[in-house]
């Protein structure tokens, strides 16, 4: 019996690890491609070890397009992503607190509206929003990519509300008895306890925003305000033949911020997602 258990455990680990390797293979292939030249990339070899380590791809890729280098693209991406993520975390936690902990007139209605907004696909409001931003002369600036995030994101509001159901209400009541107002209950009790959920929000919003291509493409006009995702696409748009090595080199670099955030906060990700409130 014990022998059988060992065998099944080994098979389990081999299966999971092999499948995992298949999953991440495209990414590894890209990373190894950043050190290969065109012929080596297009050879169709499954090998991940570059025949020669062509670091010059990185220098060549970093030079960017026109006179704009990747230093500019990274700066733009970092600014937009940081502000948007900060805005989402702060505003969504405030709104989630109101909807889940404060009994005010109209709460049910606003909760329904919030869910309705969550179910509204972004592409449906793409053209309507574009027209409004055009009217107020925001098209061509990064403002449409940042400002709306300071007004809450329904998906994260909902996620935080789910998490708040796991924070006992007795804590709020105890704080009130100790002389806290409803405002300080948020800042001293709920917000600190919300940490795992805030971190999940940071990770998810960060990579959504960092990877976003449609928004920057719609709203950023000048090459000096392009983000990394726009710049990486420019490699493929080049009128002459595509330089795959530099393209993959910059693609690889473009993923580093997302990986860093993920690795730093990884252990919180699962804890921050609570489904207890989803049950009827």
């Amino acid at each position, binding site marked *: 019996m014990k022998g059988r258990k060992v065998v099944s455990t080994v098979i389990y680990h081999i299966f*999971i690890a092999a499948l995992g390797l298949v999953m991440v293979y495209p990414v590894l292939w890209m990373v190894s491609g950043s050190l290969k030249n065109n012929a080596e990339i297009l050879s169709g070899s499954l090998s991940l070890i570059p025949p020669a380590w062509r670091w010059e791809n990185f220098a060549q890729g970093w030079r960017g397009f026109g006179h704009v280098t990747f230093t500019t693209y990274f700066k733009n991406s970092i600014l937009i992503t940081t502000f948007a993520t900060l805005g989402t975390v702060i505003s969504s936690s405030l709104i989630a607190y109101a909807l889940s902990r404060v009994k005010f007139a*109209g709460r049910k209605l606003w909760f329904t509206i919030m869910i309705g907004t969550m179910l509204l*696909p972004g592409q449906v409001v793409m*053209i309507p929003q574009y027209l409004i931003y055009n009217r107020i002369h925001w098209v061509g600036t990064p403002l449409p990519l940042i400002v709306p995030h300071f007004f809450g994101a329904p998906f994260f509001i909902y996620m935080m509300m789910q998490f708040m159901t796991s924070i006992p209400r007795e804590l709020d009541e105890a704080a009130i008895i100790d002389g806290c107002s409803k405002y300080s209950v948020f800042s001293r009790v709920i917000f600190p306890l919300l940490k795992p959920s805030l971190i999940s929000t940071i990770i998810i919003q960060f990579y959504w925003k*960092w990877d976003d291509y449609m928004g920057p493409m719609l709203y950023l006009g000048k090459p000096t305000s392009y983000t990394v995702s726009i710049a990486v696409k420019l490699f*493929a748009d080049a009128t002459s033949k595509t330089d795959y090595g530099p393209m993959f080199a910059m693609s690889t670099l473009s993923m580093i911020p997302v990986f860093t955030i993920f690795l730093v906060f990884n252990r919180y990700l699962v804890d921050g997602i609570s489904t207890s409130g989803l049950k009827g």
Partner: protein
Amino acid sequence: MNKKKNDGSGRTGWNRFIYNNNTVGYVFLAPFVIGFLCFTIIPMISSLYYSCTDYNMIDKETWIGINNYINLFKDERFLNSIKVTLEYVFFSVPLKLAFALFIAFLLTRPSKAVSFYRSLYYLPSLIGGSVAVALVWKELFARKGLINVNLGKLGIDAVNWFGNMTTAKWPIILMTVWQFGSSMLIFAAGLKEIPSSYYEAAKIDGANGWQSFWKITMPCLSPIILFNLIMQLISSFMVFTQAFVITGGGPNDATMYYALYVYKQGINNRNMGYASAMSWVMLVIMSVITLIVFKTSNHWVFNESES
């Protein structure tokens, strides 16, 4: 701190107002109310007006009634975009959810390696929406790309993935399924909350693993399946970047998804009136589909309070 008791009588009125539940609620809710008005309601209402005009962002618009809507239903490219979008959703969402649940279930074993595996499987979701990965995908499935070369080694004829109307959608669907990580995490969180006593009781009653999966796991997980289903439906309807980067909508509109076509009409051709009408038609379609899913969910979502 609440200083209500210490303040002079002149300030109690103000205090009563500021610490009132309604005030507190709307203070905290204020960002949402403002954002909802400015970034959802006002744009949607004004686009309803524009959808009845020939607005092109340059000339003053003229009112043309419901002509845009009539033209939409005569526009074969639009009807085709709805068709290919529905097809894409139909294949990608169930496959993605099934795969997410399968992996989440596999990773419930108590093992130190599990959290490592979970990160490994989450990786595609983390970066899958990026242009970088879309470009990798384009090369992998290119005519002389890695997939075809290695299919050739196995004796299978090369497939011209993006040159053929019937095959072009599959690499994009595969790419979507590959990003199953977020759904997996939500399933994993749900699985964690099923009391182990349920499984123990079933085991005592002689149930095998398969039976307890269908009789315990699935019913307990059904609200979470519904949540994931709705979220994935919505995000699938929005498919844009992958198709934009990989196929550009081709060949012959085989991957001209709804969002791509709206972009072409609205942003490229500046047919803003027409694109606004398209947005409203899509809103109606999405609402109907979401409503249908919610209505049918009564039959398959297990509700603990009813049992």
